């Protein structure tokens, strides 16, 4: 446990910032619920990134101050939003046409599990008593040009979420390109997961120990 004690895991905001660093100027990006919503605050200075909301918005800006809310503007989470200059509004068939047609450069989602073949499970658990709800997750996973996942590397109990095969019901098969966690950034390749970088103080072996899927070093 001596090595583990020296690890400085990334905080939630550091995870968002790490991913944000990899988003180039000019990309059109859809962000899922939870962790991904932190990303816009960490887009590096000088880059213009256009955020899409599935309910018919391109060009979402920061959340509004409490005293200047237009309640006719919401994002996919139903939070009130603002529009940047250059924004546009459109209906649901057009919005999901944009998604399905591969026009988004990137979609960042949270997940329960990601498998080494790029499968993602993020919409349903296997508990039979839950009311199923999928929203736009399957469309975003199937349609986006690139799907990146931003999530904790393991469950709170330490169980792996970077796995050989997903145990939860799939959202889409073979679509994840990258995974950013509190411990590492991983690329999904035809051979499985390649480690792009790791949290400070973490060794490859230690990362592998926390990961069910086999990891590869970068060539």
């Amino acid at each position, binding site marked *: 446990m001596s090595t583990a004690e020296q690890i400085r895991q990334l905080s939630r905001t550091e995870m968002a910032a790490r991913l944000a660093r990899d988003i180039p100027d000019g990309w059109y990006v859809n962000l899922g619920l939870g962790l991904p919503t932190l990303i816009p605050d960490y887009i590096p200075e000088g880059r213009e990134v256009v955020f899409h909301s599935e309910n*018919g918005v391109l060009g979402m800006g920061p959340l509004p101050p409490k005293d200047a809310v237009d309640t006719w503007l919401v994002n996919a989470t139903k939070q009130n939003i603002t529009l940047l200059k250059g924004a546009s509004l459109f209906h649901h068939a057009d919005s999901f046409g944009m998604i399905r047609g591969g026009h988004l450069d990137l979609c960042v989602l949270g997940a329960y599990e990601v498998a080494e073949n790029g499968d993602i499970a993020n919409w349903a658990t296997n508990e039979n008593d839950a009311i199923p*709800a999928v929203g*736009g997750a399957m469309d975003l996973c199937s349609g986006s040009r690139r799907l990146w996942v931003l999530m904790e590397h393991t469950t709170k109990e330490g169980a792996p979420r970077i796995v050989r095969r997903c145990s939860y019901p799939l959202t889409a098969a073979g679509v994840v390109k990258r995974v950013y966690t509190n411990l590492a950034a991983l690329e999904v390749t035809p051979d499985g997961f390649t480690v792009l970088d790791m949290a400070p103080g973490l060794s490859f072996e230690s990362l592998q120990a926390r990961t069910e899927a086999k990891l590869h070093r970068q060539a």
Partner: protein
Amino acid sequence: MIDKRVATVAEALADVKDGSVVLLGGFGVVGQPQQLLEGLLAQGARDLTIVSNNAGFGSPGLPKLFASGRVAKLICSFPRPTPPAFEELYRSGKIKLEVVPQGTIAERIRAAAVGVPAFYTPTSVGTRLGEGKETRDFDGRTYVMERALHADVALIQAWRADRWGNLTYRGTGRNFNPVMAMAAKLTIVQTRHMVELGDLDPEQVVTPGIFVDRVVLVDSPDPPPA
């Protein structure tokens, strides 16, 4: 003279029949026609199939409609948070739920509107929601076939309307409304503002009046802050 304006919500909804498939505009509560929902509750039609993105999240009206026991089935992409009224009926098997990916609902509704009986989409392939669906490969990728989703009635929230039924929307209140307005046999609109014919710029009409049957001016509230 074409005049699709009707005086009251009750009049607008008078002939909605038992067993109707009802498209309900809105994403959460934004763009959801609250007064038409209340009107449908008062009107009394039963055995309804409701098509709505959500199961009543933030909605004053939809949970009441579930509680009335008059909804037989909900076609929906995201029934969470789940209103207790819906949850109870669902648990006791008194309401059917068809969960459909959001983009697939939108496209199935559009397909019905534009005379396309079926189309192929990659969404849901290899997932539980794709199970049992017919699949087909095109250019090396697998797709599922989806059918048009036809409806009897569409309930729509507009921002501005004229007597021909031309509509505009406000902000993200647009969402499913323009697609649903095109796809039902009977399209009923509640509008925040009624304007004179000619006041809407032809370039800016979002829903041409051809798709609309009835428009009722109501004091549609702004959605609550969220």
